[in-house]
């Protein structure tokens, strides 16, 4: 599974779809160029032998922190909707889904 990064190329359109970013042609071209160069640079990680090296996902490992199961007041409706681009007073409104 450890394919070398250098062998990979980025399909900007597909990734942009995944990331929900509509890009125009110029942006796509610019990104392709920039990302190709970044990936080329990143490919230097191929040089390293990483077999048996554990990944670090937290820089300072800690034991999990707990919260006790005690309730705190929720936001008021006004607070919940204060920043909403569209709502009807009871729900957030979006274009029809599916």
């Amino acid at each position, binding site marked *: 599974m450890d394919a070398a990064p250098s062998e990979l190329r980025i399909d900007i359109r597909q990734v942009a*779809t*995944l990331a*929900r970013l509509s890009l125009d042609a110029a942006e796509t071209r610019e990104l392709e160029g920039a990302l190709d160069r970044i990936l080329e640079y990143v490919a230097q990680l191929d040089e390293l032998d990483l077999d048996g090296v554990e990944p670090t*996902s*937290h820089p300072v*490992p*800690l*034991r*999990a*922190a*707990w*919260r*006790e*199961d*005690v*309730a*705190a007041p*929720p*936001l008021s*409706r006004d607070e*919940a*909707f204060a920043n909403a681009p569209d709502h*009807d007073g*009871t*729900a*957030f*409104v*979006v*274009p*029809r*889904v*599916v």
Partner: protein
Amino acid sequence: MSAAGWEAVIGLEIHVQLATRTKIFCATEASRDGAEPNTLVDPVTLGMPGVLPVLNREVVELAIRLGLALGCTIAPRSRFSRKHYFYPDLPKGYQISQYDEPLCTGGAIVTEVDGEERRFRLTRIHLEEDAGKTVHDALRNRSLVDYNRAGVPLVETVSEPDLRSPADAMAYMKAMHRIVTALGVSDGNMEQGNFRCDANVSVRRVGDPRLGTKVELKNINSFRFVGRGLEHEIARQVDVLEAGGHLVQETRLWDEAAGVTRPMRTKEMAHDYRYFPDPDLMVLEVDEAWIERVRATLPELPRARTQRFVDALGLSAYDADVLTQSAARADYFEAVAQAVGDPKLAANWIQGELLGLLNKDGLDIEASPVPAERLAELLVLLRDERLSSKMAKACFAEMFSSSVAPADWLAAHGAQITDEDTLRAMVAAALDAHPDEVAGFHAGKAQLLGFFVGQVMKQSRGKANPQRVNQLVRSQLEERR
């Protein structure tokens, strides 16, 4: 099964809402009866910028409880990941869910299917947060989003593909439901979506070791839907294959009204969940001491309880099964049985009288107008022959409708007459009053026996002990022959 020569391979994924007060990663109440949309939300629920998840300890506790009850291995270290997809009811653009390192692995559900004990293995149980709810407003061509449910704690229980029929699936689901409710890890309320089931189902020729094309079946959130949905989906798959067609791997929805499964409408967009360990949450460590602490508080499990009802209390397997359908029902039965000292009597009454009336009113045993102590009082009177069985039934009906106490009912109606001399005199009086019928009986009309019994019962206003009356009528008629 549908067509001969085919076999179904089924795995179930059941999402169970854990019975915590607050959500999995924030201090907002998880649910409240009658809560208006978007009133159980806080900045964490709404995925507002900068706010962080902190794990509710009780969520882990309840999941460990379930894992232990099902014989799972509890991982000393498990982890939360982010599962990414865009949908309006998913506030952060990702769901926090355990992915490659779940809390529980292995385990099994042991239950009976058609009188035969079966063991269905579990793959895993993992923790995750629920999403909100999107309601489609077709009239105005828009959708409305309510985040009350977002962040509610769930466990997803995943079975191995060990199930072979809709009956297996229903038995598995019922057993799981019984266990989660008996443990108190969930209220199991299926109408509210607190216990939801999806199935993965494929078919193959009997004897073929290979697996067929898998369909994910959704919208089967009741025992009935699981049975019917799977039945139809299996039949559909067999039909397609027998007609020489091909199945596609897809998600289908059970349409109960139409009695068919239909492909779910989805966007042509490929899913790529881009899982990675959530950097906001540390590795979840569960030490042996914690596991043992939870183990020590595990209640007797439904299956063990059923067996004990048979072995120790002398109930039939059928009765024991009915009485352990829910923990509340089993608790009720045990309370009555113990107070009366006659488990069979208690079992008969609960099944025959109580459950009948509860069903008619659509009530759960928790909501029974006759609490266990009251039923026990009644059955003690019955046991001691202060009431006849018929009187007891009449009394019970009143207890159910107007909450009258058995002792008060008895005081109002008088006790059963069991005194031998009194009964003897009542019978003699009845025979004296009907000389023609006595003659008829002696001439061979045996059915007149019942007439005399009826006369005595009528005279006593139903309070004479009917068995004794029967015997006395018989013996006195013989004496007068």
